[in-house]
Structure formats: structure tokens, C-alpha cells
């Protein structure tokens, strides 16, 4: 099946908008499902390749665990740490191609981060333009 191609400039715009609206989110990344970086704003502490790989592992494990437990489909994976929160989810409408990973401050309100993640993912899914593979 042909992969729908997202528009990189509009994806970048969507991440920038998100970071502007929510100052408790420090890093926003879009990765391809097999763990390659697509867009990252701004640079995280880890190399983008590694961050993208970790995000794809988390989503894949989330899917697998839910499948094994008969617990339905994945909405997001939350990794809640003492110094930060990581929320990772698939971008709807991207045919599972894109993964959105957001790193927020540890004191960020989870509901707020999830809400912003959802609206950002929706904005990105609206950017899928044509049937080309991503550049």
C-alpha cells in the first residue's frame, strides 16, 4: 500500500505551534514508525536517531502489550519520570506512519499535555497531502 506523504513544512509548523501554546512541553518530535527521525523541535538531549528509535519501540510495545492482554487499541504511552513526562502516540490518519513524541516538564499537568498532543496530532494528520513516500 502506498504511504501517504506528510508535508514536512506543515508538520514543523504544527510542532512549533504546539511549543508556543504549551510552555511546559520542551521537545516535540515526529518519527517514522520504524524509528527514524522526521522532524524534531528543538533538539532533545539525545541524538534524534535514538529518540526516534525509542519512541517507535514504546509505541510498538504499547500495541503489543494491549493486544496480548486483550485490552483494545493504543491511545498513547506515558512514561512518567521524576524530571519529566514523555507522551508518545501514533498520528491518526497517517496509516501508522508517524509517531508523535512530546517531552514535558515533570510538573506539567498531564491532561493539558495530552490535550495538546491530541490537537497537534490532528493538525499533522490534516497535512497529509498526496500518495508519495516521505522524503
Amino acid at each position: 500500500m502506498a504511504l501517504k506523504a506528510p508535508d514536512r513544512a506543515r508538520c514543523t509548523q504544527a510542532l512549533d505551534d504546539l511549543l508556543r501554546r504549551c510552555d511546559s512541553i520542551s521537545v516535540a518530535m515526529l518519527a517514522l514508525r520504524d524509528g527514524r527521525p522526521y522532524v524534531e523541535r528543538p533538539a532533545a538531549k539525545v541524538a534524534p536517531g535514538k529518540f526516534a528509535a525509542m519512541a517507535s519501540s514504546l509505541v510498538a510495545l504499547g500495541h503489543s502489550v494491549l493486544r496480548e492482554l486483550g485490552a483494545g487499541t493504543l491511545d498513547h504511552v506515558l512514561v512518567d519520570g521524576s524530571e519529566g513526562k514523555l507522551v508518545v502516540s501514533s498520528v491518526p490518519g497517517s496509516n501508522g506512519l508517524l509517531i508523535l513524541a512530546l517531552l514535558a516538564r515533570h510538573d506539567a499537568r498531564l491532561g493539558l499535555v495530552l490535550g495538546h498532543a491530541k490537537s497537534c496530532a490532528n493538525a499533522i494528520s490534516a497535512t497529509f497531502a498526496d500518495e508519495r513516500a516521505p522524503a
Partner: protein
Amino acid sequence: MTKTYKLLFVGEPGAGKTTCVAAVSDIPPLTTDVGCTDELADLKETTTVALDYGELDLGPQGRLLLYGLPGQARFRYMFDVVREGLLGIVVLVDATCERAATNLRETLQTYAGELRSTPCVLALNKHPDPPASLQQQCQALLTEHGLVAPVISVDARKREDVVRIFELLFLLLEHGTDGPQDDEEIAWL
């Protein structure tokens, strides 16, 4: 309580790690494959992004817990997730691939430290009779990376071959691999 042994498969994308775990596991395997989005798609549809997991019953000897890692170096951190209590590591190589030696070099570069501190076996896969030149190249690459490991030929989809790997690793663990003499003896089994 049943004794369990943890076996880890590493190796280039397409070496056959996921196929192996799925083929020999007694339980439905855990897979974390997703559709490839790069050139790998020309070779196969999916690639592993977290890990494979399966189990193999060894009878009175216990149970073998099988873990497969993703093949790309960017997933190297997954090693830390599974490293605890490993019996050994199997470096799987697609012996039919013309880039086999180059691929092996990449794997060895990625996991050299881990391979030096854990018993390991290099298993040439997918080829019924791997050419002697490839076996020699593999040995040379191992030596180049300061590694000592037997190079064997397997069909990783066959249970008996995975059991053979287990037995070999068990021997290595019991008798060690230090010293060039051992290296000579087990160079080709």
C-alpha cells in the same frame, strides 16, 4: 522450579531473528514489527522496532527464553532492556546476502563490548552450505574485534538448530573461551 536460560539474537536487518523466534517458540511469540519505511522494504515488509520474545521447552533441562533485538544500530539501547542474566548471544548472519561480511562488521561494531563479556556464537543462517570464504571472513572479523566465538551454520527456523546453539553456549559458559588454543579448536563446528 523450572530453570530458565535467556538467549539473545542480534544481527543485521533480515538476518532472520524474528523468523527464528516465531518458528521455534512453543508459545505465541511477542512481536513488535512495523512496516519498513526505507530501502529495507525492497527486501521484506516489516522490521522489528522493540523486541521479539518466545519460549522453547527444553524438557528436563528447563526453558529457553528467546529474545530478538532490532537489527539497526539506532536500536542499540534495547540491549540494556534485555541484558540482565543472559546465557549468551547469537549473532545471526544472512549467509546468502552478498553484503554478509559488511553487515556482520556493523553488528560487531555495534555490540562489540557486549559480545566480549558474554558467551556468543556466530550463526550463518539461510544457507545450507555457506562458502568457506565467508566462514573465514567471519572469523577474521571476530578476531579484528577482539572476539572469540564459534562460527556455525544453522537453519534458525529449526528447533534442533536453536537447541544446538543453546548447548554450544552452555559449553562455552562452562569451559570459557579464553585463549587462542580454544579459539582454534572451536573455530568451525
